[in-house]
């Protein structure tokens, strides 16, 4: 296991790149969901604003 993590001495560059890619992937998921949530919020606000008067 530890020797797998060690990647035959190359871990220094393999793991960072995997970590970075993982980070990008996760960020994208979060950003996407957040943008959707925001849009829904916005739309709700508009609906209320219109139904109010």
């Amino acid at each position: 296991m530890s020797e797998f993590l060690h990647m035959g001495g190359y871990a220094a560059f393999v793991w960072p790149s995997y970590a970075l890619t993982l980070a990008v992937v996760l960020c994208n998921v979060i950003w996407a969901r957040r943008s959707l949530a925001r849009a829904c919020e916005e739309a709700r606000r508009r609906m209320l604003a219109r139904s109010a008067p």
Partner: protein
Amino acid sequence: MVWTWFHRLASPPHVYALAARLTPWFGWAAAIVILAGLYGGLVLAPPDYQQGDDFRIIYVHAPSAWMSLMVYVTMASAAAVGLVWRMKVAHAVAASCATIGASFTFAALATGSLWGRKMWGTYWEWDPRLVSELVLLFLFLGYMALRSAIDDLQRADRASALLAVVGVVNVPIIHYSVVWWNSLHQAPSVMKLGKPEMPAAMLVPLLTMLAGFTVFFVYLLLVRLRGEILKRERTASWIREALAG
């Protein structure tokens, strides 16, 4: 037949509902395929005869790079459709692409330069592929900057769409000019290193990852698309039900 299909794709409520329905499927599919690819790449695939374990970077790098190109093309095509048919949904798709594309272009650059640090000792070389990738990043950033600079959504849509189309016309020109430039001063060409025809044990995981990332992109697109559609449907009555349900 085709036209009815086309028209349904043009109708926001229909697309919204469709996206909502498909999202989970693509989400899970992406997760599974990518995990499989990772397992194949990190565990099953044997070390490369000359690069040792370092070549494993390809399993994140190549997909990211591939993604960056694919996303840009998708964005530009959607933009073109939006411009020609003044189709809101198409603009919404284009708008959803930008951030995704930029982030994966960045990932390609970063992983690539990490790889490069190992291969030829510096984080950066002026290799044609890298330069075109960098330019692609600029194109994405420009697109996003333009969008955020215009506050009226309609105008932002149409302006950035035009930019995307002009850009995609240029991408091949840029790429070939950079290659030509590079061939004049023979600098190290990176990708050749990765090229020697891979044994299946290495190739299959790579292809799996490419597939997985593609599905993942569709998933992200679907999620963002709904939001962008909502932003563009001010008056529509269907929003009430959509939000209620």
